[in-house]
């Protein structure tokens, strides 16, 4: 079950071709969210979709070597802590919690930095949580086999 590798060459070739463009599209959605539709939530889901596609086609254990489970779990926390940390930093810089104005000498640049960091935190958390969800679902019940 765990190492069941897809027998169809079409699937494996197509997923190999698609993997990089999906991630690049995810990064585009992540960092272009200020100018167009998008942002952390959507980008996280798109990046997670690339990794889920990979582990669907090549088997869970290969997906595990690509994104080790423990690193994935640490990254889940890193995203939330990055978001909360931006708030703490703005307190330390004599602002209020999550007040991005103080992050730079120019308030609007500060807002820009804050929004990008916060969206990055959201993106990391969403992507890793989705990968973790997929992994938990896919590996559930394997112990009985």
């Amino acid at each position, binding site marked *: 079950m765990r190492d069941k590798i897809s027998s169809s060459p079409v699937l494996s070739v197509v997923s190999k071709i698609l993997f990089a463009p999906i991630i690049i599209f995810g990064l585009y*959605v992540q960092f272009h*969210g*200020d*100018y*167009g*539709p*998008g*942002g952390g*939530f*959507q980008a996280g*889901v*798109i990046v*997670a*979709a690339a990794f*889920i596609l990979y582990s*669907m086609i090549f088997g869970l254990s290969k997906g595990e070597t690509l994104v080790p489970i423990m690193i994935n*779990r640490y990254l*889940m*926390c890193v*995203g*939330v802590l990055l*978001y*909360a940390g931006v*708030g703490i930093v703005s307190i330390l810089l004599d602002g209020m*919690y*999550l007040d*991005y104005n103080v992050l730079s000498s120019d*308030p*609007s640049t500060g*807002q*820009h930095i*804050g*929004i990008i960091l*916060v*969206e990055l*935190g*959201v993106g990391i*958390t*969403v992507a*890793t*949580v*989705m990968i*973790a*969800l*997929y*992994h*938990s*679902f*896919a*590996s*559930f*019940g*394997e*112990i009985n086999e």
Partner: protein
Amino acid sequence: MNFLLINFFLISLLLVTTFFIFKTTSLISVVALTGAFTLLCSAIYVNLDAVDVAFTEAAVGSGISTILMVMAAAKLPEGKKNKLINLFPSIILAVSISLILIIIIANLPLLGDPNAPIHLHVVPEYLKESKDFFHIPNVVTNILASYRGFDTLGETIVIFTAGLGVIALLTSNTLNRKTNFKKNNKKNER
């Protein structure tokens, strides 16, 4: 006129999809049809000019959640047909809920009404000042990340907690399960 035509077309497709979700008995096709349903919903959002919502609906609703539902359906035992024993209570429930919803919809402000309460509170201020202040053209991002930063932090923590819960419930931690199993066996022996 075009707007109405497209909306009518999409909503009738939505009704057809719903009908087939009711009709099918196989789990996988229900999952696939639900994916189609959310994709149609995101098309409706695009038609309503809510591109961000449509994007989220397409990525989360018809993308990831369909995959997760397929995974969950694959874990379920096959061959269990959907048996509807007594339709009467569910029909009454569905009709009463739809009646309540129709009454509520009748009291909602019209689509695009400039005097609707939601357009009078803080939205004009946000729309007016956000572009000059942030230099970020996407007002949705400004509201999401800056004006409503606390809410988004809360949402992120909700997602994080959901992930933690699923990991705690479903992850097959071989070592722990074996020790628990032994403990339970010992208890049973006593």
